[in-house]
């Protein structure tokens, strides 16, 4: 503040200079004095000195003395006050100048009157450069109106405390300041100006601004995070991300890109980008898909970047000058990026980049999580569709056995709508006969929490019972709580029918095999016995249990055992129904080791286990024996016939060798042949076993035509073997013939006694006597004819006995003594 009295103050003082000091005037003087001692000490003192004489002239002396003394006193006081004031002024001046706050004062015209050092430092003006200048110099032109309004208010006594505004420095720069403007009044209270206390607040402003920004960023981040958490789809995640990026990073455009299945970076969401731009830069990535720890890339000004010109042009054409690539990393793997775009060059602060990374982490996490969720959802959907459309019936029940879920096929089976499942009672569809067993099995499965397999009939929507095979397993929650059963039903009606038919067919087959009159043996391709019937047990002497599972070689004779497997393999290579080993004299081995001749017919047939062979084994022992007997019989017959022919030949030989006339010889031959034939007849009737002596005799007597009863037979029954019987026949024939020709039967009076006895000791023997009587006189024939030769020689020869002919006068006597075979040797 200057040393001179301000020009504006003097007239005021002069105007107050009244000639007389009335009490009122004195009070006013006092007031002025006080004011002067406060603010304007020099003028106050001078005024007191000027006033003193005029007051003396108007009062008495005492009054004048007193007044003088008062004046002197006042002067002293004023002088003291002046000194005091001066000290105060100096102190205040130094305070003012030393203040860290800029302080200036100005008059009511808005002209700067005082300017301290801090003001110079703050606003650049020296005191002499600004004092006398308008305050408006410190104000931006656009704020002049406002500044004038403030000045006007100040003139009216308004007080402005600590308001923030901007002031213009000498160099034109703006400075954020906080002003306190106080009006200055003179002693009369008239406002004569104002003082301004100015404090720079740029730092605080900046701090506040950055705090606000930070708050806004954090708010954005929080909102972004909240939206991410509530996002139910990837699109919602991207939308939240774009909003968050824009508001947190203060960019007007943003985009999110992810690697697709082919490893190409593709736009998945964007804000404010043209289709053309997206198309042009789609697939562009500053990092490879497997890049390690990629860092954000910030392009402060595309114009100044090292990017290719074409890319620069594309970017600029989109109205982008600055952009940033922020990598999205999930589980340590680069999955994509997000982009921020700015229309002007943009310096990316560490803080921004940090914020971007934070957003990127959140976004990557959300994308990964949401992708997993969507994958799970898709997987669940696929599973649900699979379950729903599976070509089997699938169901799920709760822990009480009520239906929770039926898939389409099962719903269609029962004709149940999905909505009706909770009230559907599957038990009512069970066949009454099956209900109990199925119910028990299912209840047991629920109680024991175990798997269950049941088969039963259920009524379907068409009103037909179908056989369903159910396989169910318990299901448990992740906490291990039993949740009910999950099961699959398969319609096995046709299978069941086929099985029943097969069982029936197999049973029929088994019965047929069992009832077969031959031994039936079924073998598989390995030659193991799989089936036998009762006949087989009898045939082979093994029990059924012993045979089943055995190798077929067990019933093959040892000599064939080695070759059998080979033959069997060959058979299965070309299986046909045929007889086995025809003409090879097949034999089978019984358990006791004996062998039996068999005939085997083989039939191959296909079963589910492959081709098997069914062998029909017939025991041909008895047939073989019969064949052997027949052969023996034929041989014997042949022998006998030939023997007989030989005998005939010898009869002819003997008959025709003699000297008898041909006619007689011929008759004798015929008679002998007929006798032979008769004996044959007799023996054949008796099966060629034996013939009794009496039978033989009667036959011969018949043959020779003598039934007159002149031949008497007497003796016990004696059975003769065929050969002896034949010999006796021929001998008796010769005796008869002889008797009829020459002996007892040649006349009408003779007769013959034939008697025989049997003696047992020492050996069985027969003694037979042929005694003729009453015939013509007998003489011994001159020459031994065939008859006597046959009797004496052949009969003895044949019987290994003795035959004696004695020609007694009364008639011929023939005695025959022959050993007899023991009776037991004769076949009875």
């Amino acid at each position, binding site marked *: 503040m200057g040393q001179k009295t301000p020009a504006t103050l003097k007239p005021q003082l002069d105007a107050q200079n009244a000639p007389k000091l009335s009490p009122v005037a004195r009070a006013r003087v006092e007031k002025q004095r006080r004011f002067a001692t406060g603010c304007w000490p020099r003028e106050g003192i001078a005024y007191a000195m000027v006033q003193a004489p005029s007051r003396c002239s108007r009062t008495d002396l005492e009054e004048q003395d007193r007044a003088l003394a008062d004046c002197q006193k006042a002067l002293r006081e004023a002088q003291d006050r002046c000194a005091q004031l001066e000290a105060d002024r100096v102190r205040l001046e130094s305070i003012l100048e030393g203040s860290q706050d800029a302080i200036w004062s100005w008059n009511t015209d808005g002209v700067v009157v005082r300017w301290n050092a801090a003001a110079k430092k703050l606003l650049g003006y020296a005191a002499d450069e600004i004092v006398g200048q308008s305050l408006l110099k410190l104000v931006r032109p656009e704020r002049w109106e406002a500044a004038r309004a403030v000045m006007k208010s100040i003139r009216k006594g308004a007080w402005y405390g600590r308001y923030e505004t901007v002031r213009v420095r000498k160099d034109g720069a703006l400075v954020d300041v906080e002003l306190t403007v106080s009006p200055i009044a003179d002693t009369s209270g008239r406002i004569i100006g104002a003082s301004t206390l100015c404090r720079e607040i740029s730092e605080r402003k900046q701090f506040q601004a950055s705090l606000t920004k930070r708050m806004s960023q954090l708010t954005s981040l929080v909102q972004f995070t909240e939206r991410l958490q509530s996002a139910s789809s990837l699109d919602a995640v991207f939308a939240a991300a774009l909003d968050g990026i824009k508001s947190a990073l203060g960019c007007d455009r943003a985009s999110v890109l992810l690697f697709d299945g082919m490893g190409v970076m593709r736009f998945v969401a964007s804000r404010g980008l043209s289709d053309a731009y997206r198309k042009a830069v789609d697939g562009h990535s500053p990092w490879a898909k497997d890049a390690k720890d990629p860092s954000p890339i910030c392009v402060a000004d595309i114009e100044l970047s090292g990017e290719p010109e074409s890319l620069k042009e594309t970017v600029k054409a989109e109205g982008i000058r600055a952009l940033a690539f922020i990598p999205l990393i999930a589980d340590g793997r680069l999955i994509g990026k997000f982009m921020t775009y700015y229309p002007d060059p943009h310096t990316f602060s560490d803080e921004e980049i940090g914020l971007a990374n934070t957003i990127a982490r959140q976004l990557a996490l959300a994308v990964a999580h949401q992708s997993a969720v969507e994958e799970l959802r898709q997987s669940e959907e696929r599973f649900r569709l699979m379950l729903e459309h599976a070509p089997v019936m699938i169901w799920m029940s709760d822990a009480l056995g009520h239906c929770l879920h039926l898939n389409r096929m099962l719903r269609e089976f029962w004709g149940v709508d999905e909505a009706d499942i909770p009230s559907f009672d599957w038990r009512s569809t069970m066949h009454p006969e099956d209900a109990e067993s199925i119910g028990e099995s299912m209840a047991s499965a629920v109680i024991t929490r175990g798997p269950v397999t049941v088969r039963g009939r259920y009524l379907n929507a068409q009103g037909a019972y179908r056989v369903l095979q159910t396989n169910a397993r318990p299901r448990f929650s992740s906490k291990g709580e039993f949740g009910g059963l999950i099961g699959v039903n398969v319609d096995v009606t046709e299978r069941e029918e086929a099985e029943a038919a097969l069982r029936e067919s197999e049973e029929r087959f088994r019965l047929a095999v069992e009832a077969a009159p031959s031994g039936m043996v079924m073998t598989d391709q390995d030659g193991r016995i799989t089936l036998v019937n009762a006949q087989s047990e009898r045939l082979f002497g093994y029990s059924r249990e012993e045979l089943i599972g055995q190798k077929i070689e067990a019933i093959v004779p040892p000599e064939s055992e080695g070759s059998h497997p080979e033959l069997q393999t060959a058979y299965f290579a070309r299986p046909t129904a045929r007889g086995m080993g025809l003409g090879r004299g097949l034999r089978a081995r019984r358990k006791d080791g004996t062998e039996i001749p068999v005939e085997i017919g083989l039939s191959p047939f296909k079963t589910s286990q492959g081709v098997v062979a069914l062998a029909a084994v017939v025991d041909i022992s008895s047939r073989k024996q019969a064949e052997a007997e027949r052969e023996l019989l034929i*041989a014997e017959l042949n022998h006998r016939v030939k023997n007989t022919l030989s005998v005939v030949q*010898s009869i002819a*030989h003997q008959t025709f060798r003699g000297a008898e006339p041909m006619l007689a010889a011929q008759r004798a031959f015929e008679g002998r042949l007929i006798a032979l034939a008769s004996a044959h007849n007799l023996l054949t009737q008796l099966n060629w076993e034996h013939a009794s002596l009496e039978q033989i005799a009667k036959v011969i007597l018949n043959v020779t035509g003598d039934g007159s009863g002149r031949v008497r037979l007497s003796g016990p029954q004696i059975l003769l073997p065929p050969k002896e019987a034949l010999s006796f026949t*021929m001998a008796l024939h010769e005796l008869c013939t002889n008797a009829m020709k020459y002996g007892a039967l040649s006349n009408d009076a003779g007769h013959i006694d034939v008697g025989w006895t049997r003696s047992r000791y020492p050996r069985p023997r027969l003694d037979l006597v042929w005694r003729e009587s009453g015939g013509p006189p007998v003489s011994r024939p001159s020459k031994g004819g065939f008859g006597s030769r*046959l009797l004496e020689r052949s009969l003895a020869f*044949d019987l*290994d006995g003795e035959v004696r002919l004695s020609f007694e006068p009364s008639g011929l006597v023939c005695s025959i003594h022959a050993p007899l075979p023991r009776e037991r040797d004769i076949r009875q």
Partner: protein
Amino acid sequence: MNALSGKRVLVVEDEAMIADMAEDMLSQLGAVVIGPVGTLAKGLELARSEVLDAAMLDVNIRSERIDPVVEVLRARAVPFVFATGYGDAIGAAMAGVDILEKPFTQDRIKNALLNALQRRAQPGGQA
């Protein structure tokens, strides 16, 4: 002269008339018939005791096999033929033995016996 002249031939045949005829035929061939006999015992006796050049044997003698006689004859290296109605039924059992089938003729007796005699003359014959 006949090849069988003077040959001593044993005949064992249990059928008397056949034996008779055989004897006749052999006699006419000039052979000396030893027997004929109709039992095994007699056959054996003659086979052992008589000097023999050959034998004509029925296979079955009263239901018994002629084998014991055969053994004796073989031991004595006397050739023999079987006269049988069984045809070649016993051929398999007695390989190398001449079979004279019944009914026989004189010629066949002759041939059979000559064959048998001839075989004995050859080394290694009549096993």
